[in-house]
């Protein structure tokens, strides 16, 4: 037997890696299976399917060739934004636990720490094993997937580059998630706690994003979410603490860039850099944590009380705040005063979470009240955070940007009756259309309107929550600031009814507004481009005329309408109802790419438009001949004048000539208009006769309209009040059972 007192040969890194890899077969096997399914089977199936459905989707419209379609499919499956990131995250988490959870058992800790390796070498050995195995596996399978896709004609040089970039991004994502997991493992004393902490580390930021948006929508009266419309490129910003969010955001920005035919990687680098910096910083912390980890840190909780307390507050504060929010939700009290119950629930939840954290960390119930004073800190933090939203401490609802920071603005109604189409004939979301196409440059006027609108919006929100405050009537609108730094700031406002019309005219009556709001040139241009014939309808409520028109004739309409639009401003729109509505629709409503439906309201002063309609046999008188009306069925809701609460519904049919003539001229049939506020109106069903053009025949018809309560003669109001159909309130319900025809027709 030889003496072993001399120094032994050095331990080979290759040998250590081989042994470690043998211990990770339980991760390698399912990982390889997942990769085989995704990169080989999945690629084959996806491209085979694409080949089959190509003809179904594109039919005779050969915008994309088969190869282009396959390449597009390959990019979606293997390129940026492919779902392989899910596999990456799972492997990263499993590898982190597999490599370092030996620290949780004395047995395994003694085994590894007693080996003749420095801590540094041991750490690097374990760490790199996980990273290298992943990198090799993911690279190998990415290559295989690429070859499979290439064999199925789905790869070009550009797609190859995209797949390579995606692989690199997945590498960085792996490093970031791997490091985060290892850090969680090393600061905890047992596996269960480590799993929770990993979840907190990886999920806190995405949860914070969602929570923030929810709280804004709940408590900020002027909150209006347009992120989903503007797209990733214009709205996403790198997150400091979330590599997963940055990965997804980067992929979304890439897709957005491509959709807008911009440089694909433009802006994506910021998210990748944030991911990389995060990975490196956390990697440094991981190394520090491992080198300083005590072998005796086994059992319950975390390695340092400060970590436990930070995690406790990180969880307790938002959860406790949500307790208070839950009370507001149940009591519909978003804008009311802070309810005592909210505070009680908040403090209770803070206490529960703090105690639960202590119990989990200590592994026993009796530890619940340890460091009990943290409950007070958590509760105070939660109350503060709650008040930030509830009382709008940051001034979100009051915020108006500095004029010098604004590039241009947009203002539009939240819901537009006008449909907007892109040049391919696909629907465009109208809000998205206005946000990106309207550029109002009178920013100082806009900010003045916004200030008044935001104040009123918040006032009305509070009025809805309390009886002491009266609601201010006004026009709901969306105001958007397009900032010089590229960002959008959007607010939902209520422009008060008594706001200076001259100020509003500056905006509503501007060419910048009208050109985009009505989109005449856009519509005419699209129709000409498609060379699409369509049908023009002119609807005045009680009747409609229609005529097929060529694109050229529609262009003539456009010129006439644009000339009349010069008269359109807030003063007109807020004081008058349109006399009719023009719509121009495609004949073939089902063919892909040629569908359109443009709507234009017509006012009495639109002489050019009315002349055009007359010239093309589309014109109709705005009011029917009262002699053609046989009866009016008026249904009305009566309100309490003091409290504005609904009291009851009533309905009556009037067929006397003098009654019909007294009301007919006041019937409003226009449905499509903006900026006009209504007083109380009753609904009315008008039974009339329609005289057909070029025919002796008249046909009975009904049309629906409304009438101001103030335009109904008193005697008719008296009759209505005698025919109540429904009572509101606690004793509400149908009190009067009556047969429509027999009981309420009044001769």
């Amino acid at each position: 037997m030889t003496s072993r007192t001399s120094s032994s040969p050095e331990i080979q890194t290759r040998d250590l890696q081989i042994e470690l890899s043998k211990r990770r077969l339980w991760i390698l096997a399912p990982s390889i299976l997942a990769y085989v399914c995704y990169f080989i089977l999945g690629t084959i199936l996806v491209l085979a399917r694409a080949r089959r459905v190509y003809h179904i989707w594109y039919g005779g419209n050969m915008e994309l060739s088969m190869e282009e379609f396959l390449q597009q499919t390959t990019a979606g499956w293997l390129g940026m934004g492919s779902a392989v990131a899910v596999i990456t995250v799972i492997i990263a988490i499993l590898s982190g636990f597999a490599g370092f959870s030996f620290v949780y058992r004395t047995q395994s800790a003694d085994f590894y720490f007693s080996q003749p390796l420095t801590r540094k070498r041991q750490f690097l050995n374990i760490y790199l094993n996980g990273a290298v195995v992943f990198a090799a596996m993911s690279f190998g399978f990415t290559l295989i997937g690429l070859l499979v896709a290439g064999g199925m004609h789905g790869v070009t040089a550009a797609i190859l580059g995209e797949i390579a970039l995606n692989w690199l991004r997945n590498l960085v994502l792996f490093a970031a998630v791997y490091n985060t997991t290892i850090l969680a493992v090393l600061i905890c004393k047992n596996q269960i706690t480590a799993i929770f902490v990993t979840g907190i580390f990886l999920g806190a930021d995405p949860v914070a994003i969602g929570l923030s948006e929810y709280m804004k929508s709940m408590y900020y009266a002027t909150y209006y979410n347009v992120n989903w419309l503007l797209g990733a490129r214009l709205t996403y910003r790198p997150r400091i603490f979330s590599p997963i969010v940055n990965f997804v955001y980067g992929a979304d920005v890439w897709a957005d860039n491509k959709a807008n035919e911009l440089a694909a990687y433009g802006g994506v680098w910021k998210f990748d850099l944030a991911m990389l910096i995060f990975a490196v910083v956390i990697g440094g912390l991981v190394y520090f944590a491992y080198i300083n980890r005590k072998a005796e840190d086994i059992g319950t909780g975390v390695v340092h009380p400060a970590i436990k307390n930070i995690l406790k507050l990180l969880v307790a504060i938002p959860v406790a705040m949500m307790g208070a929010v839950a009370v507001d939700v149940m009591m519909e009290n978003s804008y009311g005063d802070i309810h005592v119950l909210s505070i009680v629930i908040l403090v209770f939840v803070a206490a529960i979470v703090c105690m639960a954290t202590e119990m989990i960390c200590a592994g026993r119930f009796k530890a619940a009240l340890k460091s009990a004073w943290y409950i007070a800190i958590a509760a105070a933090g939660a109350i503060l955070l709650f008040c930030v939203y509830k009382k709008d401490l940051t001034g979100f609802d009051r915020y108006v940007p500095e004029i010098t920071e604004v590039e241009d603005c947009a203002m539009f109604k939240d819901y537009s009756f006008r449909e907007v189409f892109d040049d391919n004939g696909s629907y465009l979301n109208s809000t998205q259309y206005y946000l990106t196409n309207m550029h109002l440059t009178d920013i100082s006027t806009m900010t003045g309107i916004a200030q008044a609108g935001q104040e009123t919006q918040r006032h009305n929100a509070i009025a809805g929550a309390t009886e002491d405050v009266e609601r201010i009537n006004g026009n709901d609108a969306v105001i958007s600031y397009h900032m010089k730094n590229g960002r959008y700031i959007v607010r939902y406002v209520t422009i008060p009814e008594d706001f200076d019309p001259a100020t509003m005219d500056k905006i509503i009556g501007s060419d910048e507004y009208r050109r985009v709001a009505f989109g005449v040139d856009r519509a005419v241009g699209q129709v000409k481009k498609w060379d699409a014939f369509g049908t023009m309808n002119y609807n005045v409520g009680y009747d409609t005329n229609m005529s097929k028109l060529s694109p050229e004739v529609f262009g003539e309409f456009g010129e006439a309408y644009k000339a009349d639009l010069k008269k359109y401003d807030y003063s007109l729109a807020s004081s008058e109802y349109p006399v009719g509505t023009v719509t121009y629709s495609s004949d073939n409503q089902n063919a892909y790419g040629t569908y359109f439906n443009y709507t234009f309201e017509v006012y009495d002063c639109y002489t050019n438009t009315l002349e055009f309609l007359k010239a093309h046999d589309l014109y109709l008188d705005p009011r029917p001949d009262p002699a053609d009306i046989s009866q009016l069925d008026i249904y009305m809701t009566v309100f309490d004048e003091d409290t504005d609460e609904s009291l009851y519904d009533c309905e009556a049919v009037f067929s006397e000539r003098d009654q019909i003539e007294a009301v007919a001229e006041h019937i409003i049939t226009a449905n499509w208009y903006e900026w006009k506020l209504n007083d109380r109106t009753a609904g009315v069903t008008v039974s009339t006769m329609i005289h057909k053009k070029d025919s002796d025949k008249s046909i009975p018809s009904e049309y629906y309209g409304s009438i101001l309560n103030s335009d109904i003669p008193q005697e008719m109001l008296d009759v209505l009040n005698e025919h109540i159909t429904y009572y509101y309130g606690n004793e509400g319900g149908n009190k009067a059972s009556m047969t429509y025809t027999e009981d309420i027709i009044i001769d």
Partner: protein
Amino acid sequence: MIEIINISKSYDDYPAVKSLNLQMNEREVFGMVGTNGAGKTTLLRMMAGVLKPDEGRIVIDGETVWDNPAAKSRVFFITDDAYYFMNATPEDMKEYYRRIYPAFDLERFGNLISNFGLDTKRRISGFSKGMRKQLSVIMGICSGCKYLFCDETFDGLDPVMRQATKSLFAKDMEDRGLTPILTSHNLRELEDICDHVGLLHEGGILLSRDINDMKLNINKLQVVFETEDDRTKLESGLEVIIHKEQGRLHTYTVRNNRETVESILGGTGTVFAELLPLTLEEIFISETEVVGYDIKNIILS
């Protein structure tokens, strides 16, 4: 040589080892005895480089152990409940250890496994506790390390295996200078194998002595004196550790060698006097009673 210099270690606020100084010579079997919580395992883990001392340092052959592969490569740590990879066989563990300890003796491993009747292809998870300990001893012997730290290793072995293991140690000590460091609850277990024994209690060393020296220098004496003067004369001439009196019969435990005791007895008037042998346990009890510990209650028999 292993030098433990002013070592202290606490777990949170609990002091596991307090200002401990100890020296372990090469080619000697050092036994550490103490009850649960005495600090034996903690000390051994620090010596193996697993735990970092709060104070002091441990030096093996002139090199500090902590985070030092050169020092740790001389050490093989056999824990009380040894760790094996999930679903591993002795063959798998052999492969691992031979990479970690490049001086691993593969041929000897094969022989010992065969001699102990262990199946290299069978999963260790199916082994009994004793078989697992046997395997860990075999791994330690074959690793080629100079120092073998055994944490209560003998406690799970049957008498035949215990003897076989002792023989292995003896052979390796002679052949290659192996230095086993053992811990146990059981003093009797260590008596016939250890050259040097240390008694730990509440994180400190109560005593650390060469066994032969202890046996030579502590004697038990039963005496019946003729006169009180004779008693005084005897007591002044000897280093009395413990004195018990039952009527006229006096029992002394003295820290003097046999020759000195006999010499003083010769000059003292006694009705009856007899020197009695002491077991290691009795020596320990005697030594620790002096410092106020009723060691009988803490050393398991």
